């Protein structure tokens, strides 16, 4: 394992220290318990948005703290959901009197820890609601699994719900928007290589030089199946087909196409995937009205990508386009 780290035990703390120093105009980092809030938190009268989860997915979530997106992010250890304490502290820190929305990716650990934190916050008289994001079509049968995982769609939920909160929607309103995004977003990912969790020191799985994993999540877990290495266009088809099959969007629908890098894949390759994915969506009669291409929700240094499709309506489009000012996503500000 070769990483630019000092000690696996200090990875999260040192990352946060650097993040704080580099972005002190936008965010404030609290240590022990660790959480990140926007510099002007709490914003009075605004619904507070808190997300969080294991570290290793940067820029998610701390990179999305700022005006128009999250009020707080709670990073756990690498690939390990944070405990309830920092979630509670972050919730209290961003409550501006209008309640707090927890944006939780659907993993057993995240759900349980956020649930506990929400109960504790309620006991301190903070209204908390939660949206559990579960957009991963790789998890085919939710009766036989812990349910669909939250992956790329999380970025969409955070941006759009953030814009709704910023324009002044109340807690139920922001939850309704977040739910609408979650209901209309689907993702599927793949890996060319595994990643190495610092404290494990070994790759999360072993993959031959001629194999790839299809249907991975974002925690270095193996995917649903392993197939021989293939050209980018074929790989793109393996990701787009199950999304469309699941979504069954009506022809003529407008969509946002998000091609995400898993952390170690060059940007150029993401554009090659985007190029073909866009063609496939157009062939299915869809209009790609908005796009996002880059490393937005990653798995450490994993090579690979995920594709996310969000069905847009006018309101979601407007909220997607709304100004945002965070370390990792910036528009109009």
């Amino acid at each position, binding site marked *: 394992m070769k990483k630019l780290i000092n000690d696996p035990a200090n990875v999260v703390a040192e990352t946060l220290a650097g993040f704080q120093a580099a972005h002190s105009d936008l965010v404030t980092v609290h240590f022990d318990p660790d959480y990140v809030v926007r510099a002007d938190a709490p914003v009075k009268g605004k619904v507070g948005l808190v997300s969080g989860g*294991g570290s290793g997915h940067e820029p998610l979530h701390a990179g999305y703290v700022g005006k128009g997106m999250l009020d707080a992010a709670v990073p*756990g*250890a*690498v*690939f*390990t*959901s*944070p*405990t*309830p*304490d920092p979630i509670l502290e972050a919730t209290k820190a961003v409550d501006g009197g209008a309640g707090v929305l927890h944006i939780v990716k659907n*993993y*057993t*650990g995240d759900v*349980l*820890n956020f649930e*506990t934190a929400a109960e504790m916050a309620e006991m301190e008289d903070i209204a908390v609601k939660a949206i559990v994001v579960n957009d991963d079509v*790789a*998890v*085919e049968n939710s009766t*036989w*699994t*812990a349910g669909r*995982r939250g992956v790329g769609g999380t970025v969409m939920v955070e941006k759009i719900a953030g814009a709704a909160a910023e324009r002044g929607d109340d807690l139920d309103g922001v939850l309704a928007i977040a739910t609408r995004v979650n209901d209309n977003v689907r993702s599927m990912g793949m890996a060319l290589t595994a990643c190495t*969790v610092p*404290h*494990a020191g*070994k790759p*999360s*799985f072993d993959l031959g030089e001629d194999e790839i994993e299809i249907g991975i*999540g974002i*925690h*270095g*877990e*193996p995917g*649903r*199946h392993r197939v021989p290495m293939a050209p980018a266009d074929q790989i793109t088809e393996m990701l787009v087909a199950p999304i469309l099959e699941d979504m069954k969007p009506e022809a003529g629908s407008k969509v946002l196409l998000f091609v995400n890098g898993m952390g170690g894949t060059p940007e150029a390759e993401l554009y090659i995937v985007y190029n073909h994915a866009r063609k496939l969506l157009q062939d299915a009669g869809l209009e790609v009205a908005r796009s996002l291409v880059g490393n937005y929700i990653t798995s450490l240094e994993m090579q690979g990508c995920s594709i996310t499709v969000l069905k847009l309506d006018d309101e979601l489009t407007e909220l997607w386009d709304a100004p945002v000012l965070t370390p990792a996503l910036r528009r109009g500000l």
Partner: protein
Amino acid sequence: MTDALSLAWADAWIRDAQAVLAEHRMELIDLDRAIGDGDHGENMDRGFKAVVAKLDEGGIDDVAGVLKLVASTLMSKVGGAAGPLYGTAFLRASKAIEGDVDANGVVALIEGALDGIVARGKATTGEKTMVDAWTPALEAAKAAAAAGETPAATLRAAADAAAKGAEATIPLQATKGRASYLGERSIGHQDPGATSTAYILNAAADAAEAV
């Protein structure tokens, strides 16, 4: 009731458990790498180290107090799925007993733990989770206690059953937790949480036999 397990046992148990989990940290990481995200050994090691640091601060005066301390520390230091599940397990276990622990107390302790895990995680047996270690442990403990065994022997029966239960997760397909995402590919690997459960209960039995 001269052989009821006291504070000294509980303290020894948790310290033994910490040592064993530290020793098997990489094994648990590797089990979790195979069908999860590779953090279970690290999570348990971090959690139990924190527990022992708390124990060292002293001020605890009964078994339930130790278990409660374990519960709150795991809850606030472990994270992931294992943190809340073990946290709730130890919390319910602490509530299930009073004073020193006899054989029926051992049964109550294990039953409380299992109930807590099921209440939070909603898993039943056969889903390839720690429930598959706690459930046979409880059955074995019940049988031992009913047969009039000592608390130590009751714990040994529970620990052996947990170990067998953990091993029996190998052929199962996971339908709860992170391993469930693998579908059929989860078959053939031992569940990390069931394995850490077996280590923890084995430490309990070892500690009981040593006092």
